[in-house]
């Protein structure tokens, strides 16, 4: 069992996934990986609703024990959930130029942050579709370039995966403005998942997220980094050419590494703090990490936080 699990995991490495051209197949692999690892409904984590209590019987998972009832009545009850049906999942995917950066080389092609984002988006869409939720898609750069209303029709997933596979135009980012547009477009209370590196003005992001929250949407922020962005492994003198028209810089990276990482961590910390302040789930993804692990971790955290 353990061997088969390990073997399966091997296929969930981004380097392997990148070789699978079909995004649908890629998403199914990720989701099945998540299922194989948890033995629990993968859908429960993304959109669930409390149903009832029942007495504890030996062998039950103690993670479902309602500790508040136990404290109050000194009786052990388990919480039971019901899959929510009429939930809308809006996947907002950043297709700006910075998302096109990727340092993992797979057969001469880079595995970009955008590749990582659309794999995640397709996986989430797959899970939602399988629990009959409506799924919508928004792809943006400095403006909302494509938007598909949520639908739970069987063809929706195919439509979404097809759209995600379109090559973006690689423009600059404008997250705040786009989130405003989405907040205005989506009238029904939805779960909005933002997949982006968030390399934008923090205030603008904050403003957009606040707008979404104001519209009672539940927001999940999945920040995606490339491996080099978090490690900054450069040694020799390098001319860094900034994407999204941010100029260039000739420097000795070893001397600047600590300063760079400090700036990046500071930005990430502020973003996390901002998310906590607005009750937004935040998850960081790095392109060299297996997708199913990151996604499982996110779903487990989310499940735990809802209890």
């Amino acid at each position, binding site marked *: 069992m353990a061997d088969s699990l390990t073997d399966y995991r091997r296929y969930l490495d981004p380097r392997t996934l990148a070789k699978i051209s079909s995004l649908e197949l890629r998403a199914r692999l990720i989701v099945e990986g998540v299922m194989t690892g948890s033995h629990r409904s993968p859908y429960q984590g993304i959109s669930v609703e409390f149903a009832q209590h029942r007495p504890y019987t030996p062998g039950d998972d103690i993670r479902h024990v309602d500790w508040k009832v136990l404290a109050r009545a000194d009786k052990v009850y388990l919480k039971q959930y019901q899959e929510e049906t009429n939930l809308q999942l809006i996947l907002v995917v950043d297709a700006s130029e910075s998302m096109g950066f990727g340092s993992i080389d797979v057969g001469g092609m880079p595995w970009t942050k955008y590749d990582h984002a659309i794999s995640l988006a397709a996986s989430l869409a797959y899970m939602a579709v399988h629990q009959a939720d409506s799924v919508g898609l928004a792809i943006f750069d400095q403006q909302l370039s494509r938007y598909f209303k949520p639908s739970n029709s069987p063809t929706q997933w195919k439509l979404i995966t097809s759209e995600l596979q379109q090559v973006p135009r690689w423009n600059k980012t404008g997250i705040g403005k786009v989130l405003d547009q989405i907040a205005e477009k989506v009238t029904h209370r939805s779960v909005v998942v933002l997949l982006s*590196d968030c390399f934008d003005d923090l205030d603008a992001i904050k403003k957009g997220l606040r707008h979404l929250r104001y519209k009672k949407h539940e927001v999940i922020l999945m920040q995606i980094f490339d491996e080099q962005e978090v490690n900054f492994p450069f040694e020799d003198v*390098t001319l860094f050419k900034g994407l*999204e028209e941010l100029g260039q810089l000739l420097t*000795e990276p070893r*001397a600047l590494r600590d300063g760079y990482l400090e700036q990046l961590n500071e930005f990430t910390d502020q973003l996390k703090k901002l998310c906590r302040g607005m009750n937004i789930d935040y998850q960081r993804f790095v392109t060299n990490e297996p997708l199913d692990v990151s996604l499982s971790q996110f779903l487990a955290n989310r499940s735990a936080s809802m209890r």
Partner: protein
Amino acid sequence: MTEITPDQLLLLHSTFDIRHSAFPLAFSFITPAFAIIGLLAVSIPIIIHLLNRRRYKEQQWAAMQFLLAAMRKNRRRLKFEQWILLATRCALVALLGLALARPLGCADSAIGRLAGRSAAMHVIVIDNSYSMAYQADRPDAPTHLDQARKLARQLVDGLSSGGDSVVLITASQPATAVIAKPSYDLVGVLASIDRVSQRMVGTDLAGALAIAEQLAREEAGQPNRTLHLFSDATTSAWRNGQEKALETLGQQLAEQYAIRHYNLSLPSQSNAAVLDVSPGSNLVRTRFANDFRAVVRSYGASVESGVLWKLGDETLPGGSAITIDQQTPPITQSNAQLRAGGSAVVSAQIVADDRLKVDNARYHAIEVASEMKLLIVEGRRGMSQMDGSGAFLELALAPPTLDTQPGRTTTSYLKPERISDIELAGKVLGEYRAILLADVAQLAAPVADQLAAYVKQGGTVVWFQGDQVQREAYNGILVPRGLLPGPLTQRQSGAGYAFNFSPTGNNHPLLNAFKGVDRSGLETAQVFTYWQIAPKEDLRVENVLTFQSTSASAADPAMTLHRLGEGKVVFFASSADAEWTSFPAKPAYVTLMHEIVAGTVAGSERFMNLTVGQRIEIPTTRELGGVPTLHNADTNADEPLVQVTRSDGSAVYQSPPMEKPGVFRLNAGKVSWPVAVNVPADEADVRPLSDEAIRTALGNVEVATLGAELPGEAESEEEGRDFGWALMAIVLALLGFECFMAMRFGHYRKGAAATK
């Protein structure tokens, strides 16, 4: 713009020495080239830095905003780090160069004492001549040389290993650089000092100091130089004819060295020595009573002692005690009757004991002549005995006896053989002690060469003139070989020329037999014809006899004498017979011919009498019965002599330099000779000179005069201080600092660290 030549630049770097200025620290470099290289190499880190800036990778970058923010925040710090790293690396290279250049600080600098180790070139000159064998009876060092070695060892023991270098020179004849180049191997130097042996030769201080002076010029990059001179300060060492050279060298050395003289002499040291033993005349003969003469001296205190004479192993009579001092007249051993011809050794020995024993005895090897063979070469032969041009000569040299004993025709020890000039080429000239040529027309060049070689090895040639003599042949063949005193210029003929001779005049030593003798015939002899000559100045021709000047000619030489190599050439301007002169008919003719032979024929035992350090060289005129060997009494073995070719092309047998005084035996088949080897006579005067006299001898320069002990600690501290090690320590510290900074500033690769 003033240009600086490379030489000036080198001088500037190598002699940047301000020790005489008010500045407390002065520098110079042992190897200034490294300092120059180090300073030039400072540009290397800068060039690498600039090249690195030009050679870079390109990288597309998404998270540019964080990189730019980091740069904005850290720009000043990064620049500072880069500059300080660059400066450190430049300093590292420069200091490494300076450290390798071995900068030296002056002695009186406090900083110098703090920072450095001593670094100087010490030139040690040890006099190991035989006077250094003087028994001074010091503890652990019986002789002066033992004390010199002991002091030199102590000196080297106190030197700084790796900083100080040593050169070792011995000052016995000939001066030798035992360690010719500065050696930092102090253990090896100590071993070399131990190997400085006591030699039985004279002193060559001038030679030793000349080596030191040459060395100072070669090692001009080493500014701290000290010359340590260990000598017994004897009169014989410092006043032996080299005074002018010592004075000049002393002044030159004082500019290059701090000179220290360690005077090892004892204040009252004295020495008695036999300076010479020799026969009273040129020839030692069996048929005559022979005198031997010994010169004995005592330098310092006078000595009461007998002098023991020996002929071989036989003690000769005499030997009563005399007072020996510096004025003692020569002692004569008279009337020594020698029974047989051949070689023998006569010796004289001072019986009294003293502290320098090696010169208390002296030996002289002699060849006792029972008969002396002469060769008369006639250019003109006749039908009867008296017709030849050399007939009168033969009669004069070996007059026939009137009461002829059976088997003997003459009582003369001389045995002349008369031949024609044609026969000369076939003769072994070495068998004859003198060759007299009378009216010989000319000699072929090979024969002239043979004759010249014969003279150069100690033979005597006497020329007589006559009608046969061809001027051009003489001038063309004999003059260039030095066989004539000069070219024949003109044949003079007249009514009669007289010799310019007066019995009471100041005559040549060869004419001593005629001194005070009236009517000897010299003053009345008439010369009708003679050859004028023009003596060559470089031959130092002595006029034995001249003609009286007339209105036609002015005091032409009648008889001359000059040296050629080890031998002598006599030129008689007229004939040996009565053809050109009436002189052969005079009684003085016989006397003069004998005086010429006795006064010019040297004993042929010269090769048997040597001074320590000389080689035995057997003359080619000696007949050998086999390869000559020298009997070594120490090993009781016969060591063969080596045949070497001299510059004139002749091959001779030679021994190695004789290292010990004494009597040795040279064997060559059926013949053998004794060889007497003596210490040099000019080393016996051991009276010490004062320190002031030593200074004066060295040209009144500054000389630290020390006794037989090393100076104390305070004085020995006055050495150059080597900052090389201190600088190397700074280099290492800087290297560590550079590594730390490079790590600290993130300029070295390290493991990747992820963000939070």
